[in-house]
């Protein structure tokens, strides 16, 4: 199974994203109104790592939350019958009102997860802005959604599957591309 990103490159991509965040958001208001929100499952450890990078580089503590989007999915209960997807806890231990939210996910594909996440976030308050961070953008959008920070652009076919593995959940850091390109 071809590996398209190893631990080293993943680390560098996340550090680069942290620098880009500071470049884009650092000057006018400082970083005091930034907050990271990771989408469960793998967006959460990614958000924590970006928070650590931001602390290393700019000595700034950015609050970090976890968002579960299951109850906002647009495909819930559209299938005839089947087990309901597991709902897990959303933990956003700060007010998002007037914050600049950095939303984090592992793979950007159709954009439907992000659409759900935007709806969910708005139920928590009215952020000043929402920016999107993804480790991998694999294309094939079905909604008008675009990432602000991308770890790696990965051209894929819809038949392939992209698997991000993270130390915190899977025991190792890499990105795998499965299936044929045709």
């Amino acid at each position, binding site marked *: 199974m071809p590996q398209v990103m190893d631990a080293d490159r993943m680390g560098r991509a996340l550090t680069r994203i942290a620098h880009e965040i500071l470049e884009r958001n650092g000057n006018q208001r400082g970083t005091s109104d930034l907050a990271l929100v990771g989408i469960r499952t793998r967006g959460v450890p990614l958000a924590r790592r970006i928070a650590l990078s931001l602390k290393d580089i700019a000595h700034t503590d950015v609050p970090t939350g976890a968002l579960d989007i299951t*109850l906002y999915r647009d495909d*819930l209960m559209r299938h*005839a019958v*089947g*087990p*309901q997807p*597991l*709902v897990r806890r*959303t933990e956003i231990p700060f007010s998002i009102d007037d914050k600049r939210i950095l939303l984090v996910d592992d793979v950007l594909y159709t954009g439907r997860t992000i659409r759900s996440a935007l709806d969910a976030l708005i*139920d928590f308050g009215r952020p000043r802005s929402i920016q999107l961070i993804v480790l991998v953008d694999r294309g094939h959008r079905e909604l008008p959604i675009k990432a602000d920070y991308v770890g790696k652009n990965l051209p894929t076919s819809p038949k392939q599957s992209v698997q991000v593995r993270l130390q915190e959940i899977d025991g190792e850091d890499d990105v795998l591309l499965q299936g044929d390109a045709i």
Partner: protein
Amino acid sequence: MLKSRHLLGIADLASEEISLILDTAEAMKEIAARPIKKVPTLRGRTVVNLFFEPSTRTRISFEVAEKRLSADTLSVAIAQSSVTKGETLLDTVRNLEAMAPDMIVMRHASSGAPHLLARLCRSVIINAGDGMHEHPTQALLDAFTIRERKKRLDGLKVAIVGDLLHSRVLRSNVHLLNRMGADVWACAPATLMPADLARFGVRPTTSIDEAVDGADVIMMLRIQHERMHGHFIPSTREYYSLFGLTAERARRAKEDVIIMHPGPMNRGVEIDSDVADGPYSVILEQVANGVAVRMAVLYLLAGQEGEAD
């Protein structure tokens, strides 16, 4: 996933299904803390709350749970319905079904009434209490409250004290706590003790001191005057002096005991006000948790609407 498309009783649930409901309820509980306490999950679904017996807590709890999940809800109060004009249960429900609801939450004075509907209707049926049989969502919210406080269910000593004979809450709790590995003690006067309780893995006793001794959880049940056709207790005063939970009696339990009551309470009969309002009481937490548990049940069953048995 849940194996059945209805929730009729705890007796039908495996321990993994109980855990799934409790885990899902944990996620649901957070929604109550949001500025907008609503998720779009059951948009466009219709839930009918059909209460053939008076209920405040359970009915309102279901209504709040349904609204938090964005379902359309309607509650039928039987005093104002055609039932008072002589319509049968099945006719009432078939007429409601003609309006195509997705789920029916039902409370009925006859044991087994929701099982009858489940066999004969298209809708998903949730039992909100049937006669003296089961009250599954009550047992689930009790378990949720215990698990939240004690971090586990297995190995806990749970004393259930009160009018056990008429209690559907007892039956559902016995099934659930047994399945999850708790050590269940049941205490009542001999006249209010169901026969053969020991067969269900419960330890029956007529001594509240013995039941409460070293308990992690004390669950007090109401004296159900409305179901008592005959003389089961000499007087509520005598009942209080022999079986009422006082602060002094509660001291025999573990230091971190939690005291529960499904409501409505008869203060000064089965429970002293000092205990009900005291630091060990989790009675109002039970009510808050009821909404989260019912949201979990509605969500998990909504996935199985299309299925036929």
